[in-house]
C-alpha cells in the first residue's frame, strides 16, 4: 500500500504520531457528531466516522470483526454511490435492466415450467422417501394398453405378498362424468386405496379422507373426497358440502372430505378433482370395470420402505415375490407365444419424489431446446449490456480518473463497477422473475397436451429463485467483468495527459469483438427460428390426402351409455343414418381409428403376391362406405365400399398407393388377396386403390394402409369416431351436431370438434416451439441491431475528423457510406461466420424435431445469414447517412 508507507515516512517520532492521532480523533469526533445530527445512533455514527478512514483506522483496531464490518460498510457506501450514479443515467440503466430482464425472464420462464413438470418434489410428506413399484421387463402386446403399471390381479398379489414396504397404496387416474350444479361435466378423478392419504401425509381440510372401512362397503355407502379447486369452483367453498350427494357416472356418491389446496395427486400436470376408493370402481364402472381384466395395466403403486430394510434387500425380496405373482396371475387369454414374456415381468422399485407424468417424456426435448435458446438469448443480452457498460465507462473515464486521483484504489474502482453491473443484473433478475410467472402460465396454456390442459404449480420456489439469482450472477459476470477490468487497467494519467487515442482504440476493438459475439449468437437464434419455422410450415403445407376444410369429428364413447354390446352395431347404424339426415350434412362416416389423432391399429398380414405369399406389417382402417367422400380422399383405381359390403358378404378391402406399390410393385393389386390371422383368420379381396393419406400424424410418412368395411371386420367397438362433411362452412353445423347429441343421445359421451382443429392441435408442440423461437430470434435481431448502431455511432464519432478531411479532399457521400458499410460488414461477417459454425454444430441435436428439412441444409444458413444481413443493412443505414453528411468545415474548425 503506497500511502501507508508514505504515512509511516511522515510520522517520524512519537510527538508527531501523537499529534496525528489527536488530529484524526478530532476529525472522527466531528464526523460522528454530524452523523448523529443526520439521524444515526451514537454507536453507528462513531463506527461510520471511523470506517471512512478505511484501513488506517482498522489497522489500529486490529480486530477481525471490524475488518468484515468495515468491508461490508464500505460496500454499503459504494452501493449508495452506485445507486446515485445509476440514477444520474436513468436511460441507460433502464435499457440495461430491461435487456437483462428479457434474457433472465425468458430463461426463468422455461425453467419455471421445467421445474414444475420435472424437478419439483410432490407437495407431500417426505417426498424423497417415496418409491414407485413398476413392472420391469414389461413389454406390450399391441392390444394390451401399454404401460408399466400393474393390473388389479398383480396389485392383489403384491398387496398380499410383499413385506418390504411399510405404507403403500395403489391409485389410477380416470375421467368421470359428474353432475355439478345441474350440468353433466367431464372431470378428472382418481381411484385410490385408503392408505394413500396416510402414506402421503395428506389430511382433509374439511371432513375426512376415506378409510379401510369405506373400502369394505363400497356399494352401500359410496364415498368421495373432492379437491380444493373443485370445492371452490363448484361449491363456492361452502363448508356444508360435507354429506352432500353427488352423481358420478350416474351413481350417487357421498362427499366426505375436501383435500388441501396444494395437493394434486401423484400425476404432475393434472389435478384429480375426485378421489374414489378403488373398491368402488366396479360399482362406478359396472360392466366396464377394469378389476377383473387380467391384461389391463392401470394401477400405479407407491410406498415407503419399512425401517431397517435397504433398497437392495427390498429389490431381491420383490424379485422372489414376482415369480410367484406372475405365475398366479398368468391370463388364460394370453397367446402361447406371449406367456414367457409375461412370466419374465418383475416388480421393481424406483424413486418417485417427483411423482409421475405422461407429458414429461414428450416435453423434455422441446424444453431442452428452449432452455438452450433462452440461454443464448441471455448471452446475447449480456454482450449487449457489456457493450453499453463499456460505452458508459468510456464516457466516465474522467470521473474515474478523478476518483483515483482522490485516493481511491484501482481495486475500489473495479469493485465499484462490478457492483454496478451486479445491481443492474439483480434488478434485471427481479423484473425477470416478475414477468416469468405470467409468461410461463401463458406458455403452458398455449402448449397443447393430449391429456388436456396441463395444471402445474408455477409458484416460484427456492429452485426458481436460485436459478434467477444464478442467471443474474452469470449476467453480472459476463457483462461486467470486461468493462470493469478495462476501466481499472486503463491508465487514467496517460488518458488525462493528452488527447491520446490509444485507450479508445482498444475500446473500439473490444466493442467490435463484443458485437461480433452478439451477431454470432443472433445467427444461432435465427437459425433455430428458420429450422423450427420451416418445420411448422412444412407440416402445415404437407400433402395430407384429405380435404379437411368442412369436416366435423365426433368421438363417440358408448362405455358409460348402458348400451349393451349386442346392440351396439344396430345403434351405430341408426346413429349414422341420423347424421346423414342433418340437412346441412353432405356425407357422414364412421371409422374405428380417427385420422391424425395419434392412435393407430397395426397388424401383420399375409399378402398374395406374384412371388408367393408374403408377410407384411400394415396399418388398418375400418370404415363405413362414405368415409372417402367425407374426408376427401380419392379412390384412384377399382371401386370404393358400398352398403352391400356388409357382414356376411364376401370380404373386401381397399389399399392405399403406398401399400399397392410396396407390396405388389407395378402389378395391379385389384383382385389380390390379403389375409389376417388374428383374432380369427379372414381373407379380403382387394377391390380398389385409394390415394395416400396421412394416418397417425402429419409428421409420420404415409404407411401402407388397408381399409376394410367396418361391418365386415371391426365388429362393434365401444368407441368410434364419426366424421361429417358439411355443405357450408363447418362452423355452422358444430352447434347443431352438439345439440342433436345432447337432446337425442343424452347418455352418450361425445367430443365434437372440427378436423382442421384436430390437425392444428396435432402440431401444437411444433407451433409452440416455432413461435417461441421466432420471438427469441426477433429479440436477438433487435439486440444485434442495437449493437451495430451503437458501435458504428461510436466509430463514426471517433473518426469524425478523418471523415471530415476525406470529404474536404473530395470524397463523395457514397464513398463515406461505403467506408461505414465496410466497417459494419467486416464485423458482421466475422459474427455470421462464427454463428453459422456454432449453429451448424448445435443444429444436429434438433434433428428428430424437424420435418421436411435437415440441419445440414445450406439453405437454412443462407436464410439466417440473409435475414441478419438485412438487419445489419438497416442498422447501418442511419449512422452511415449521418457520417456522409459530415460538414468538413465544422469538423476542421473545431480541431
Amino acid at each position: 500500500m503506497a500511502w501507508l508507507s508514505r504515512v509511516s515516512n511522515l510520522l517520524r517520532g512519537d510527538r508527531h504520531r501523537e499529534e496525528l492521532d489527536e488530529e484524526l480523533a478530532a476529525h472522527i469526533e466531528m464526523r460522528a457528531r454530524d452523523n448523529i445530527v443526520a439521524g444515526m445512533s451514537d454507536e453507528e455514527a462513531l463506527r461510520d466516522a471511523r470506517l471512512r478512514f478505511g484501513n488506517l483506522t482498522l489497522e489500529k483496531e486490529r480486530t477481525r470483526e471490524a475488518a468484515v464490518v468495515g468491508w461490508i460498510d464500505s460496500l454499503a457506501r459504494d452501493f449508495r454511490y452506485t445507486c446515485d450514479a445509476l440514477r444520474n443515467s436513468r436511460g441507460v440503466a433502464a435499457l440495461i435492466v430491461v435487456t437483462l430482464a428479457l434474457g433472465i425472464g425468458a430463461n426463468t420462464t422455461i425453467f419455471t415450467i421445467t421445474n414444475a413438470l420435472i424437478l419439483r418434489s410432490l407437495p407431500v410428506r417426505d417426498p424423497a422417501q417415496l418409491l414407485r413399484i413398476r413392472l420391469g421387463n414389461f413389454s406390450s402386446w399391441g392390444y394390451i394398453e401399454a404401460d408399466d403399471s400393474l393390473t388389479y390381479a398383480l396389485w392383489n398379489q403384491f398387496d398380499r405378498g410383499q413385506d418390504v414396504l411399510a405404507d403403500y397404496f395403489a391409485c389410477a387416474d380416470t375421467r368421470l362424468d359428474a353432475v355439478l350444479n345441474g350440468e353433466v361435466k367431464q372431470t378428472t378423478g382418481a381411484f385410490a386405496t385408503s392408505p394413500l392419504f396416510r402414506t402421503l401425509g395428506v389430511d382433509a381440510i374439511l371432513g375426512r379422507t376415506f378409510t379401510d372401512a369405506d373400502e369394505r362397503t363400497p356399494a352401500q355407502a359410496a364415498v368421495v373426497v373432492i379437491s380444493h379447486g373443485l370445492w371452490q369452483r363448484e361449491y363456492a367453498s361452502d363448508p356444508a358440502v360435507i354429506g352432500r350427494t353427488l352423481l358420478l357416472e350416474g351413481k350417487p356418491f357421498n362427499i366426505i372430505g375436501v383435500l388441501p389446496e396444494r395437493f394434486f395427486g401423484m400425476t404432475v400436470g393434472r389435478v384429480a378433482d375426485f378421489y374414489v376408493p378403488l373398491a368402488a370402481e366396479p360399482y362406478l364402472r359396472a360392466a366396464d370395470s377394469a378389476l377383473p381384466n387380467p391384461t389391463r395395466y392401470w394401477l400405479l403403486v407407491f410406498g415407503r420402505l419399512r425401517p431397517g430394510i435397504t433398497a437392495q434387500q427390498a429389490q431381491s425380496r420383490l424379485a422372489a415375490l414376482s415369480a410367484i405373482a406372475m405365475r398366479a396371475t398368468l391370463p388364460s387369454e394370453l397367446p402361447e407365444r406371449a406367456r414367457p414374456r409375461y412370466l419374465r415381468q418383475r416388480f421393481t422399485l424406483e424413486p418417485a419424489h417427483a411423482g409421475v407424468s405422461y407429458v414429461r417424456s414428450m416435453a423434455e426435448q422441446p424444453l431442452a431446446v428452449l432452455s438452450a435458446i433462452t440461454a443464448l438469448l441471455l448471452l446475447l443480452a449480456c454482450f449487449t449490456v457489456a457493450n453499453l457498460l463499456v460505452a458508459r465507462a468510456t464516457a466516465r473515464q474522467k470521473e474515474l480518473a478523478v476518483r483515483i486521483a482522490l485516493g481511491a484504489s484501482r481495486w475500489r474502482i473495479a469493485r465499484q463497477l462490478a457492483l454496478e453491473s451486479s445491481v443492474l443484473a439483480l434488478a434485471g433478475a427481479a423484473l425477470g422473475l416478475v414477468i416469468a410467472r405470467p409468461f410461463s402460465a401463458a406458455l403452458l396454456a398455449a402448449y397443447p397436451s393430449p391429456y388436456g390442459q396441463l395444471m402445474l404449480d408455477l409458484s416460484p420456489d427456492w429452485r426458481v429463485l436460485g436459478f434467477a439469482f444464478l442467471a443474474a450472477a452469470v449476467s453480472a459476470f459476463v457483462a461486467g467483468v470486461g468493462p470493469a477490468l478495462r476501466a481499472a487497467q486503463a491508465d487514467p494519467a496517460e488518458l488525462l495527459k493528452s488527447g491520446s487515442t490509444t485507450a479508445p482504440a482498444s475500446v473500439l476493438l473490444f466493442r467490435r469483438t463484443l458485437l461480433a459475439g452478439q451477431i454470432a449468437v443472433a445467427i444461432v437464434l435465427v437459425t433455430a427460428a428458420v429450422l423450427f419455422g420451416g418445420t411448422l410450415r412444412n407440416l402445415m403445407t404437407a400433402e395430407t390426402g384429405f380435404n379437411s376444410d368442412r369436416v366435423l369429428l365426433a368421438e363417440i364413447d358408448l362405455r358409460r351409455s348402458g348400451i349393451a354390446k349386442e346392440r351396439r352395431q344396430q345403434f351405430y347404424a341408426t346413429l349414422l343414418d341420423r347424421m346423414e339426415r342433418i340437412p346441412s350434412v353432405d356425407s357422414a362416416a364412421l371409422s374405428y381409428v380417427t385420422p391424425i389423432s395419434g392412435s393407430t391399429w397395426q397388424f401383420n398380414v399375409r399378402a398374395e403376391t406374384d412371388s408367393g405369399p408374403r408377410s407384411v406389417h400394415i396399418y388398418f382402417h375400418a370404415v363405413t362406405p362414405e368415409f372417402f367422400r367425407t374426408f376427401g380422399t380419392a379412390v384412384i383405381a377399382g371401386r370404393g365400399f358400398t352398403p352391400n359390403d356388409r357382414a356376411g358378404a364376401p370380404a373386401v378391402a381397399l389399399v392405399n398407393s403406398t401399400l399397392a406399390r410396396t407390396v405388389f410393385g407395378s402389378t395391379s393389386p385389384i383382385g389380390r388377396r390379403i389375409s389376417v390371422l388374428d383374432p380369427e383368420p379372414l381373407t379380403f379381396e382387394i377391390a380398389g386403390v385409394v390415394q395416400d393419406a396421412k394416418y397417425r400424424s402429419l409428421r409420420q410418412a404415409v404407411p401402407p394402409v388397408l381399409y376394410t368395411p367396418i361391418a365386415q371386420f371391426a365388429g362393434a367397438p365401444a368407441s368410434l369416431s364419426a366424421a361429417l362433411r358439411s355443405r357450408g362452412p363447418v362452423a355452422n353445423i358444430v352447434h347443431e351436431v352438439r345439440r342433436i347429441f345432447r337432446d337425442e343421445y343424452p347418455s352418450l359421451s361425445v367430443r365434437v370438434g372440427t378436423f382442421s382443429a384436430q390437425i392444428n392441435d396435432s402440431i401444437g408442440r411444433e407451433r409452440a416451439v416455432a413461435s417461441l423461437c421466432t420471438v427469441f430470434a426477433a429479440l436477438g435481431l433487435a439486440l444485434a441491431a442495437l449493437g451495430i448502431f451503437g458501435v458504428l455511432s461510436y466509430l463514426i464519432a471517433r473518426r469524425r475528423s478523418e471523415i471530415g478531411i476525406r470529404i474536404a479532399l473530395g470524397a463523395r457521400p457514397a464513398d463515406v457510406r461505403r467506408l461505414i458499410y465496410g466497417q459494419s460488414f467486416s464485423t458482421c461477417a466475422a459474427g455470421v461466420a462464427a454463428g453459422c459454425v456454432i449453429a451448424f454444430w448445435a443444429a444436429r441435436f434438433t434433428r428428430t424435431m424437424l420435418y421436411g428439412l435437415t440441419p445440414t441444409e445450406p439453405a437454412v444458413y443462407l436464410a439466417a445469414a440473409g435475414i441478419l444481413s438485412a438487419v445489419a443493412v438497416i442498422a447501418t443505414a442511419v449512422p452511415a447517412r449521418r457520417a456522409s453528411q459530415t460538414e468538413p468545415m465544422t469538423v476542421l474548425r473545431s480541431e
Partner: protein
Amino acid sequence: MGRYANDRLQGTLDLLVLKSLASRGRMHGYGITLHIQTVSRDALRVEEGSLYPALHRMEQAGWIRAEWGVSENNRRARYYTITAAGRRQLAAEQESWAEVTGAVARFLEYA
C-alpha cells in the same frame, strides 16, 4: 497494486485542498472534506484516509501551515492555512489542470 506514475493526478487532491484553503482561509481537515464535498455538490468525495497524508506532505513542502486551535465546538483541532508558496503552487496546479481538462474535453468531443 503497484505504484503508477500519477504525480499529476496525486496533485489533484493537492489542488482541491489548496483551492479550498485559498478561498475559505483557515480550516481543519474535516472542514476541508466537507467543503470539497459541498462545493462539488457531492460529486467529489475525498478519501479521508488519503487526506491527512496529503496535508502533512504539503505542510512539509511549505505550501500550507498548520497550527492547533479550537473548533466551533470547543474541541482542539489542527487548523491549516495556505502560504505564499502554496498560492504559487495553486496557480501552477490550476494552469496544468486546465491543460489536462482541456485535453480531456477535446478528447471526449472528438474521440
